[in-house]
């Protein structure tokens, strides 16, 4: 198959999956937070509110494009564009799985593998600050300006511990290419960087995760848009699609950081334990269990609607579980399952933290970055370097 | 299929450097003057990398890397100075910052 055609196909699939994930991530977040707070969450549009993302998209698209009269127009329009572009571009170097055959042509489940892939993601994500800083400045509003100022200071500060936390697992794998980083962690969980002999990277995993929260401006570090102090922070003056762009950028950054966590520390698409012990059957087991539970609840329905929806869901789950047993599909699907499971777990952590922790105060935030996170990351890098050199 | 001549890269570098010099001489705001210096450093880096390509050596890259590090240090101190100047004199116009003691 033609290389260009294949690349276009892969790009289209990745873009479609990414955008759908972004839309549904928001639904998942609202649902999870609702359940944490003992509410139901979105429920009206579609079964269990499953069509809510679609409704949100339609609402945002059809809203009036409003440009306030006092803004710097060029910068005001540039900022959301910059934010969303820089957030979406980094997906292009992330590997989702092993080599597969598409109509007989071998290809990797990755758009492209740069041998400076990790630096590429860092570079692109560091450009994302401009979206927020410029949006805050161009809005010509004191709350926006404060939000933009806070975010640029915060993101510069947290980029340091983030980069240093990335450096120490790199000492173990000796490469900057994301595909080779995952390949270096082949095997079960004890070969992943987080537990890898001789220098387990648990500390740098935690530092990376915390700094990742700050880089994506999520709770408890969402100072740039702190509602109770700054109205809505840097995007106070934005509405309709421009607001949606900022929103999408935030979720895309979350996905990127989760993918990075999975690749750097959790072994990317490598299974939890080796296939010799039957890890290939884990996805089937999980989907079968999910399907059976859904069918059971469908037979004893709490609501009238559940009598139809839950058995249908259960059958779909069972079919997906059966798909994982087909030898032809296994090669592609099982790595994808493990990768998605790890990314999903990290994303769930993001949402969980949002439902649990209060927001930091600004001085606490800065002090934490410079006086705790940075020294810890540095000490971890030194120890890792020493251990790797002596081993 | 052949690429552009190496001379084009050097000419581009010269153009950018000249624009940096022009900005340095022409502008009044101390921040923009500082940015013109960064533009000049970037232009020089481009010619370092181009020469590195020509000589098939990595030394030019290392030198450009050092330039970047120095630029980062310079930016940190320079911007701190700018902030201090602005705090004390409430102007960013270099022509108005003309007395030794304030």
């Amino acid at each position, binding site marked *: 198959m033609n290389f260009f055609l294949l690349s276009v196909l892969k790009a289209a699939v990745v873009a479609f999956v990414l955008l759908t994930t972004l839309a549904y991530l928001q639904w998942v977040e609202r649902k999870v937070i609702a359940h944490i707070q003992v509410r139901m969450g979105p429920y009206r549009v579609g079964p269990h509110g499953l069509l809510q993302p679609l409704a949100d998209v339609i609402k945002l698209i059809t809203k009036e494009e409003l440009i306030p009269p006092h803004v710097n127009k060029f*910068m005001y329009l540039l900022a959301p564009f910059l934010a969303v572009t820089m957030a979406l571009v980094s997906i292009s170097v992330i590997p989702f799985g092993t080599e597969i055959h598409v109509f007989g042509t071998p290809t990797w489940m990755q758009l492209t593998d740069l041998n*400076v892939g990790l*630096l590429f993601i*860092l*570079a692109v994500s*560091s*450009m994302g*600050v*401009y979206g927020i*800083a*410029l949006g805050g400045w161009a809005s010509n509003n004191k709350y926006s300006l404060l939000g933009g*100022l806070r975010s*640029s200071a915060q*993101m*510069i500060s947290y980029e340091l511990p983030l980069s240093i936390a990335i450096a120490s697992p790199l000492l173990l794998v000796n490469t900057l290419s994301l595909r080779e980083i995952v390949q270096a962690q082949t095997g079960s969980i004890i070969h992943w960087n987080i537990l890898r002999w001789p220098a387990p990277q648990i500390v740098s995993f935690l530092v990376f995760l915390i700094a990742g929260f700050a880089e994506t401006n999520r709770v408890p570090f969402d100072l740039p848009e702190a509602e109770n102090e700054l109205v809505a922070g840097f995007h106070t003056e934005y509405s309709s699609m421009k607001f949606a762009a900022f929103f999408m950028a935030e979720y895309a950054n979350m996905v990127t950081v989760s993918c990075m966590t999975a690749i750097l520390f959790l072994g990317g698409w490598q299974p939890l334990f080796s296939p010799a012990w039957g890890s290939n059957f884990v996805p089937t087991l999980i989907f079968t269990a999910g399907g059976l539970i859904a069918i059971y609840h469908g037979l004893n329905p709490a609501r009238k609607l559940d009598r139809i929806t839950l058995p249908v869901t259960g059958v779909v789950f069972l079919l997906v579980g059966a798909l994982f047993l087909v030898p032809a599909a296994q090669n592609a699907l099982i790595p994808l399952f493990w990768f998605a499971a790890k990314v999903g777990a990290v994303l769930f952590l993001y949402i969980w933290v949002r439902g649990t922790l209060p927001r930091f105060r600004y001085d606490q935030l800065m002090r934490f970055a410079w006086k705790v996170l940075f020294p810890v990351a540095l000490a971890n890098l030194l120890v890792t370097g020493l251990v790797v050199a002596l081993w | *299929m052949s*690429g*552009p*001549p190496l*001379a*084009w*890269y*050097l*000419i581009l570098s*010269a*153009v*950018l450097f000249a*624009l940096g010099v022009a900005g340095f001489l*022409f*502008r*009044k*705001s101390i*921040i923009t003057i500082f*940015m013109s210096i*960064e*533009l000049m450093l*970037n232009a020089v880096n*481009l010619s370092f*990398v181009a020469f*590195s*390509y*020509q000589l*098939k050596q*990595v030394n030019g*890259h*290392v030198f*450009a890397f*050092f330039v*970047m*590090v120095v*630029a*980062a*240090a*310079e*930016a*940190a*101190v320079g911007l*701190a100075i700018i*902030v201090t100047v602005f705090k004390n004199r409430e102007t*960013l116009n270099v022509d108005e910052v003309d007395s030794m003691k304030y």
Partner: protein
Amino acid sequence: MDVILFLIFAIIAVVCAVNVVVQTHPIASAISLVGVMGSLAVLYLLLGAEFLAMAQIIVYAGAIMVLFVFVIMLLNAGAESKRGRSLVAQLLGFPLLIALLALASYFIQRYYPGTATVQFGAFKAGTAQNIGRALFTQYLLPFEVTSILILIAIVGAVVLARKEL
């Protein structure tokens, strides 16, 4: 293909650089400078300097220029006033600049005739491995000196940014 890519990004770089000089508002200048740095990073990639291209974006565009934007926003610097510019500079500056550039181009063309072309992929030594090796063997002393320089810069910035001065 190489020529087209070079021309596109060279033109972006020059236009943005002109914008840096011409724009009156510091934020506009800063964003234009980020444009210059981004297109220079692409040119570095064309020259086979992949590590340097990424370092360019991370260090220059992602750290230094963010610091500039931050300071401009912090000081709330407005547009520069156009008064007080020297008439001689306004009249003679531009032609002299063109003349200088023409001279420079002439001499560069003379010393580097069109035979030395740049082919993407012909020089592959610009990887992180090679640069790291050069940095930690041949250039170890300069590297260590740079770290001291950065330390001095940090201390200097902290001292300058203190409240009482």
